């Protein structure tokens, strides 16, 4: 047993880079997947709507931890080699896709129907209608809740610790096992998450207020 020292502090702090890296992977992948989900859910095609709905129900209706386990234990079954990076990245991307997709679906549906009719009347095809008419307007209202959801993504990466991915939480567990000073260790871990998440929360709240003001005018 040793006492908590500066090297331990540094070890946990350095692990924050993996939390950030995993969050970015989850967010970028989840944004691409989320766009597909949102387009599927608002599609005219019944099959696309159905498929996107089932996807969302499955990923919003099961715990993220179980999704992580299923991928971690399921990929080897299908003959795919997994390390914690691949398993955690895949699970978080899929989960984020479902939640961002639902948020963005709401934003797309909030655009008045007349916009779509106008685009149709101008003879715009689906791609042009979405790209030039609907999505730019939806983007504006989607910004605040998306920033807010990034906080959930960062917090979600902590579950990767359970399958042995050494990010901040896992680093904390390792140091705690060696030093047995949980109060300092987990306060530090919580502090790092707070430092990452709080600015995003404040930004999201500010954007929301601004938007409410803009709409009230």
């Amino acid at each position: 047993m040793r006492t908590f020292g500066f090297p331990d502090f540094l070890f946990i702090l350095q692990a924050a880079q993996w939390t950030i890296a995993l969050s970015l992977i989850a967010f970028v992948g989840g944004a691409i997947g989320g766009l597909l989900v949102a387009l599927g859910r608002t599609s005219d095609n019944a099959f696309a709507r159905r498929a996107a709905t089932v996807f969302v129900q499955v990923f919003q209706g099961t715990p993220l931890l179980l999704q992580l386990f299923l991928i971690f234990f399921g990929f080897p079954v299908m003959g795919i080699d997994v390390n914690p990076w691949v398993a955690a990245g895949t699970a978080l991307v899929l989960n984020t896709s479902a939640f961002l997709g639902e948020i963005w679906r709401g934003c797309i549906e909030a655009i008045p129907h007349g916009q779509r009719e106008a685009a149709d009347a101008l003879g715009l095809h689906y791609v042009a209608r979405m790209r030039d008419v609907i999505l730019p307007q939806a983007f504006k209202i989607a910004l605040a809740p998306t920033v807010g959801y990034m906080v959930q993504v960062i917090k979600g990466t902590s579950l990767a610790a359970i399958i042995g991915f050494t990010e901040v939480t896992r680093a904390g567990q390792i140091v705690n096992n060696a030093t047995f000073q949980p109060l300092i260790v987990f306060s530090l871990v919580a502090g790092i998450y707070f430092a990452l998440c709080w600015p995003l929360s404040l930004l999201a709240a500010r954007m929301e207020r601004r938007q409410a003001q803009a709409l009230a005018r």
Partner: protein
Amino acid sequence: MHYQFQFQDVFAAWPLLLQGTWITIRLSLTATVLGLAVAIACAWGKTSGPKWLRFPINAYIELIRNTPFLVQLFFFFFALPALGLRWSAHAAALVAMVVNLGAYATEIIRAGIESIPRGQIEAGLALNLRRHQVFRHIILKPALKAIYPALTSQFILLMLSSAVVSAISADDLTSVAANLQSQTFRSFEIYIVVALIYLALALAFSGLFRLVYRLALNYPDRR
């Protein structure tokens, strides 16, 4: 793909899985009831309590909402005993869930209280309704209706995130799955079944909540 799925070990353990499911439901319901009590107290403190109370309440909410549940769980299970508080994994899990839900539900309830315009209450009093009648018919019901969707989806989120308490081996459904896994080595099959149980729970509760809404809260809005 030459994997032989073997579910018999999983299904043979159905009494354990059933018990784990029951513990997950009970844990979530208990945490919700206690968490709502915390949230109502905090919402009162934020909207009509003394000024000095606001800072600690806001600090609590921001701290909980901006750190992962898993870290909060580790804090309650590992750090508090280091300060001399000895408790079981189950108790630590329950307290962590109560504290977590309390923070999220405070904001929901506060929004509900603030959604009742002052004029409505005055109108009720002017119609000679008694205080408790005003509270019941003019404040409580519309406020409940306003926050019902957010509150019920928060319950489902809590139930799903309670899977995380298996990290400290509280005896919930996911803990049962982890134990079975180490005995039978049928990890994939076990987690498929357990994920389906969670999915069934989530769908059942959201169906139940929709039914309650239709039966008790479905009346025309003034807006």
